[in-house]
C-alpha cells in the first residue's frame, strides 16, 4: 500500500482513498437477458460476395492508414469508410 501511494504521488493522482472493492467473482446473477426487441429489418443471415468485398476493402483501408500514417485502427470508433465496388488498391 505504501508503494502504491508512492506511485500515485509519482502520477500526480492525489491521495489514495479507501474505496471498497466490488468482488466481481462472487457475483451471482439470476436475471435473464431477454432477446433484444427490435423493429429494424431482419439483417442478412447469409453473407453475399459484395458484403465480403466490402469487409476486405474496409480492412485494406485501415491497414493503408496504418501503413501511411502509422495510425492503427482506433478502439471505440467506426472510422469513415466508403465502399467502392471493384476497388482493389489502397
Amino acid at each position, binding site marked *: 500500500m505504501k508503494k*502504491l501511494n508512492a*506511485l500515485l504521488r509519482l502520477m500526480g493522482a492525489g491521495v489514495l482513498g479507501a474505496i471498497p472493492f466490488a468482488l466481481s467473482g462472487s457475483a451471482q446473477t439470476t436475471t435473464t437477458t431477454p432477446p433484444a426487441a427490435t423493429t429494424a429489418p431482419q439483417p442478412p443471415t447469409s453473407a453475399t460476395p459484395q458484403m465480403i468485398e466490402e469487409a476486405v476493402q*474496409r*480492412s485494406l483501408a485501415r491497414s493503408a492508414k496504418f501503413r501511411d500514417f502509422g495510425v492503427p485502427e482506433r478502439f471505440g470508433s467506426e472510422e469513415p469508410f466508403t465502399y467502392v465496388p471493384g476497388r482493389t488498391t489502397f
Partner: protein
Amino acid sequence: MYLLPKTSFARQREAQKARDNRAEIVKALSHGQITRRDLYKWGIFTATGTLALKNGLSPFAPSAFAAVPTGTPRSPLFNAQKFSQPLPRLAVQTPTPLTRDADGNAAFPAALGERPAKRLSYHTDFSANPIDPQFRNPVTGRGPIEGRPPGELFAHQRWDEFFPKVGYVMSIAPVAPNTRFHPQFPAQNPNSVWCYGTGRFVNGTLPPPLFKGRYGEPILTRVYQNLPVNRVDNGGFGRNETQVHFHNAHNGAESDGAANVHHFPGTFYDYRWSTTLARRDKTNTGATDPRASGPDGNGGLVNVAGDFRELQGTMWWHDHRFFFTAENVYKGNVGMVNYYSGPDRGNEGLNDGVNLRLPSGSLLDSGNLDFDVNLIVSDAATDQAGQLFFDIFTTDGFLGDIPLVNFAYAPFMEVLPRKYRFRILNACMSRFWKLALAGPTGTAVPFQFIANDGNFVLNPLTMVTLDHQGTAERYDIVVDFSRVKVGDRVRLVNQLQMRDDGRGPQQDLTLAQALAGDPNDPCIGPIMEFRVVGSVQSVDDPSVTLLSTTPDTSVVPLFLTQQIPIVAPIRTRLVEWGRSGEGDSRNPVTGQCTPDCPETAVFPWTVRVNGQAAHSMNANRISLLIPKPGEIEHWTYVNGGGGWDHPIHLHFEEGVTIDRGGDAIPATERFVRKDVWRLRSTGRRTVTFQIQFGEYGGSYVNHCHNTVHEDFALLMRIQLLTGVPGSPQTAVTATPNPTPDGVVFTTPEILPEGDPRI
C-alpha cells in the same frame, strides 16, 4: 520491448520500477484496496481503458534517459547456457480401465477410491440434496462437488454409445517443489506455475502430461481443482477458476471446456472425451471402412463409424476460463493428446495395408514414442528472482524472452540417424514461430510436412522451413537424421522476428541471420539442439537400448489421406475480427461481464457478423447459430485491419481451407483441414473455408488464439443445434453461470444476423 543486456543501469532501473508499479497496481486491485474506477480517476487508465503512457508506469512510455520507450527488464538466465539440459519428454499418463456398474455409471477400480463417473453431473445430486455432504465441495464446504452444471443440458451426450472405457484422474494445482525451467534457474514458487499432476488433490508437475487416445476407446478425464481457495494467492497473475478445453476434439459441449463452465478449488469436473470420428451419422455409418478405426491393443483394429478423412492426430488441451485464458495457459494449464487410428497407429513395424507406418517405433502395439516426439514450444518471461512473470496490462500481445520446449529452457535431445516424427505445438500467448533445421555447417536440413493442426495433408511436402506457426497451431513433420552422421548436431531455429508490441510477425530472417541471433529477441535463433548419437534408451521400454545400426523400417507414404470435396454451400457467413465498435462485454447497468472479468479489463477487440454491429465477448450472447447437422457452409474470416495478425480458432469442427481472397495459399493448408487460421495483416487479410457440424450440440466458441486478444475479448459464442434428435442440444441451451455456490442459468441473447432460422 526487452532491454538489451548492455543497457545502462539507470534505464534498467527505470524499466524495473515501471514494472514494479504495474505489479503494485495489480496487487492493490486483487486485494480490494482500489477499484478500476480509481484508476480512471487518477489518470492511470485512459478513457479508452488502456494504461496511461506515463514514465514510471508503461513500458511504451518514453524513457527519461533516451529517445526510446522505457522497455521491460530482460529475464535473468542465471548463467544457464542453451543446450545444457536434456529435453524432458511429456509425461505419458497411464489409463485406468473403467467398468459399467449396475447403475450404468463408469466405475474406477475400487483401489483408487474414486466415485463413479455418471451421465448426469454430481451437481444434479447437489441441487436435489444441497445439505448432503457427499455432494458438497469438500474443501470449502460451499457449493457442489462437481463443476459440471446440473441436469440434462450438461449430461454427457450419447453416453451409452460412447461409454468411457478408460479414465484418468488429474489435478490442476500449484507446481511441486524444486520445479525449474533449467537446473540453474531458481525453483518456481508453488503459485508461479499452475499445472497438472497425476491423481486427486496432488501438486502439479512439469513437463506437461501426454495422453494416448485411441479411436473407439472413449476417455473419462476427471480433473480435480487443487488451486488456492484465496484468489489473491496467484503469484501476481492467473485466476483460480479453470475449465479444460480439449482443442479440437469432437466432443459434446459439456466436455468441450468452453461453455462458460469453469469450476472452483475443491471441486472436480468429469470430461468425457468420446474419440468420436466426425460424420459418424452420415458417412460409413456401418463402420465397414477399416481406415476408420482405432488400435485394439493387440495388433488389430476396432472399426468405428465416420469419415476416415476426418481422423485427427496431434491435439492438446488447455485452460479456457474466459477473460483469464492467457494467464492460466501461460501459467502451465496445458497438456497434449495424441489420437491413434488405423492409419496413424504409432507403430512403424506393423504392415496390414491400413497402417501408414509413420516413424514412431515398434515396441508397443500402438502409440510408440521412441521416434515420435511431442514438442510444446513456448516463450516465457521471469522477474529478477526468476519467477514466471506476466504483465496483465498488455492488450496487444505478450512476448516472452525465454524460449522453452516442453517447459525447459533451450534443451537438447539425442537422436539416432534415422527418421523421426515431431509434433510441434505453438503454446505461446502471442508469439508466432517460423522454424527450420540447421545442420552442422549452418545449411538447412530438409524435412517432410505431414499434418496441420492434427490433420494429414494429402501428400507429404518437402520443405526447408516451416510456414509461420501461430499460437495453437500444430505442425507434424518428419526429419531424417540419416542425412547427417553420428556426432553431428542439428538445431531447431526460429527465423521469425516479431513486432515487439506482440501484434504479429515483423520479418522473416534468413537461416544465417537467425543463427546469428538477435540481441533484441533471445527467442530468435536456435531454441533446441538434436545430437545424433549411436544409441539411445527407449522411452517405450526403458530396458531396451536402441541402436543406430538397427534398420529404419518407418515409411512416409506418398498418400496420407484423401481430399474432402468442396461443394456449393447451403449458406455463407462473414466474420470480421478487429477493433470496431465500443466493446460491450460489460453490462451497462451493473458493469459486470459474463462471466466476471478483471477489474482492469477493457475490450478493444470485437467481432462483427455479416457486416452488422460489432460485439465483444459475452458468454450470454450467441453470435452464430447452426440450425441443423450436416449442412455444408462456407465461412469467410476477414481481419478487421490496422496491423494485427490474428490466429483464429474454431472449436469442435475443422474447416477445409478454400481461398485466401486471391492471395497464394500455403501448400500446407490448401484444401487441408484446420482449426486455426492465421488472419494476416498483409495481403487480402481473409480466409474462406468449408465447414459442417454434426454428432453433438450445445454452446461452443470461436475466437482469436492470441490469448491476450481472446481475453480482451476477441471471442464469440456459437450455438450448435446439432445434437441427436430428442436431445436438449437440438434447441438453444441456457447459459450456465458458475458461482462457488453452484451454477445459475440465464437465457442467452441471439444476434439476428447469426440466426438463419429466422
